[in-house]
């Protein structure tokens, strides 16, 4: 599903450039539930942004569902994000002035689905995450766990091939964290590839596989203690 070869990425800084990702090779198969682990500054967010086509990479090749993702036009990138990818963020990133239902329906707005139809579909997805009765609530009337479930429903509504989650449990207590992880597992069971960036071992252990990143390099099979911060 995802194939990265020799991906490099550096950022320009005041003095020179900061090499964030160094020759990253990565294969993630269809239907996998993987975590990307690493301390802050390890490059895991950058990796996720590249996977999510939110950011460009300097060299290497990135294939998403056998399509080369390189030098895409703005509208093509938007189209891929809309059709292939679903995002879940640590800070939920719901639009505060829209109801839960409207937030979930938003990706379909960009697919030109009619308002009535997309709201009906959004209600189905809210039901799936157990928030059907909360459809007309505004984000500030929801708890953290509820917000994250709304965000997951939004990520799923466009039937993506891959769901990318950036520290999805970072702002949640452990009980709700597990609830959210159960939801991700349920999503994964439907055959959707789920990639979760986290620095929590508890969360990582719930995944099929952990990809460990340190200083922009992937380390496989090394001792977990090396990543304990």
């Amino acid at each position: 599903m995802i194939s990265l070869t020799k991906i490099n990425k550096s950022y320009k800084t005041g003095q020179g450039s900061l090499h964030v990702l160094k020759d990253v090779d990565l294969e993630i198969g269809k239907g996998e539930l993987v975590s990307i682990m690493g301390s802050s500054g390890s490059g895991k967010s950058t990796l996720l942004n590249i996977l999510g086509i939110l950011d460009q990479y300097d060299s290497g090749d990135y294939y998403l569902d056998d399509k080369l993702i390189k030098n895409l036009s703005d509208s093509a990138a938007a189209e891929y994000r809309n059709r292939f990818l679903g995002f879940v963020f640590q800070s939920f990133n719901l639009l505060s002035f829209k109801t839960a239902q409207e937030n979930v329906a938003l990706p379909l707005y960009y697919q030109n689905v009619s308002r009535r139809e997309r709201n009906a579909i959004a209600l189905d997805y809210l039901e799936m995450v157990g928030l059907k009765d909360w459809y007309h609530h505004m984000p500030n009337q929801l708890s953290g766990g509820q917000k994250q479930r709304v965000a997951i429903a939004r990520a799923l509504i466009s039937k993506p091939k891959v769901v990318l989650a950036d520290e999805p449990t970072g702002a949640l207590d452990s009980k709700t964290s597990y609830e959210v992880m159960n939801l991700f597992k349920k999503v994964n069971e439907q055959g959707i590839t789920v990639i979760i960036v986290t620095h929590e071992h508890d969360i990582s252990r719930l995944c099929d596989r952990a990809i460990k990143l340190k200083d922009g390099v992937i380390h496989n099979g090394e001792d977990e203690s090396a990543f304990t911060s």
Partner: protein
Amino acid sequence: MELLREIATTIWMHKLRTALTAIVLIIGIFSLIFLFGMGRGLSNGTMDVFGKFATNTMFVWAQRTTIAHKGLPTGRIASLTTQDAEAIRQNFSEVQYMSPRLQLGTTRVAAGQNYGSFEVRGETPDLKFILPIEMEQGRYINGLDLRERRKVCVIGTGAKDILFKGASKVIGEYIQVRGVFFRVVGVQASMQTGDQGREDDMAVIVPLSTGQVVFNLIDRVHYFTISCFAGVNSNVVEAAIKRLLRDRHEIHPKDMLGINSFNLSNQVQKFTGLFAAIDGFILFVGLGFIIAGIAGIVNIMLIVVRERTREIGIRKSIGATSGSIMRMILIESIIITTISTYIGMVLGVATLAFFDYLITKLEVESIFFSNPEVNFKLVFIAMFLMIGFGALAGALPAYRAAQINPVEALADE
């Protein structure tokens, strides 16, 4: 449609922000329309003073001479005559109407038991076409009255009210001037405001020839009121008429006071120029307001884009293209601009209408102010301009929004 609904929701959910954006522009448009209307009111009011006066009218009269000429001393006053009128008529084809006029002074006039002091004048039929007067009843002095020296008269509405208290029909009634009876054939009403209008409303007018005979002023004329055909430069004709009169009355050609004159077209031109200048000034100030309004919109839209960076980042991460973001901001800007313009316009026009109502209702129509109004064509042009300006104002913010990098936007707290 979907886009409009999406934008409408955004605007509705940020009422305060939108209102603040709009208010500058609303005030700007309101001020422009209000100022323009008031300027027009001032201009209308002042122009009403001239009424429907033939604006190329001049007045010519004789005064004491100031330069000795042909052995004659200074200080003489030439006696203008009916023959001078004939001479002017024969020599000047540019003259459309010419009225030699006789002033009989303020005189006691009586009608039955009622009496009052009125200015009595001897006039000719031409004057009706020069002065802005309307016949409220009956007719004006005509050629037959003049030829047959009929003892008829036209009285002003004010004089009518005093001499015939309450009576509505006064045609055929008689009034007495210095012991001589005149039959009323018409009642005149001035269309001018101010002193001039009042003067015509309080006048008693007899045929020139009758006045000359009855009051023992054979052939005498006190002054001429002359109007030229349209397109004629009345200043040139004025000078030539004065040359002719000076020549006929042995007055030095350079004696400006010996034969003096007043040309209304100069006056009208001065006012026309003044109001063009006022209009220009108002336009300048108004444009300043509008530019400030637009700058305000650009400014606030830029802040809005900044404030919405995260929202735009989210929208992009779930599949919004830069184009769709740009459209969103642009149309939002146009909607805000158009609605603000419309509100400002309605407020402006409503305020002017209210002023107009007050002026009519309280009858405070003053000499220098009447009927504030605004040209609707101008309003619509302004409105379309504002939509264009809205697009212009939204362009930079929209471009900025489209350039927002979703990675940075999502990191934005």
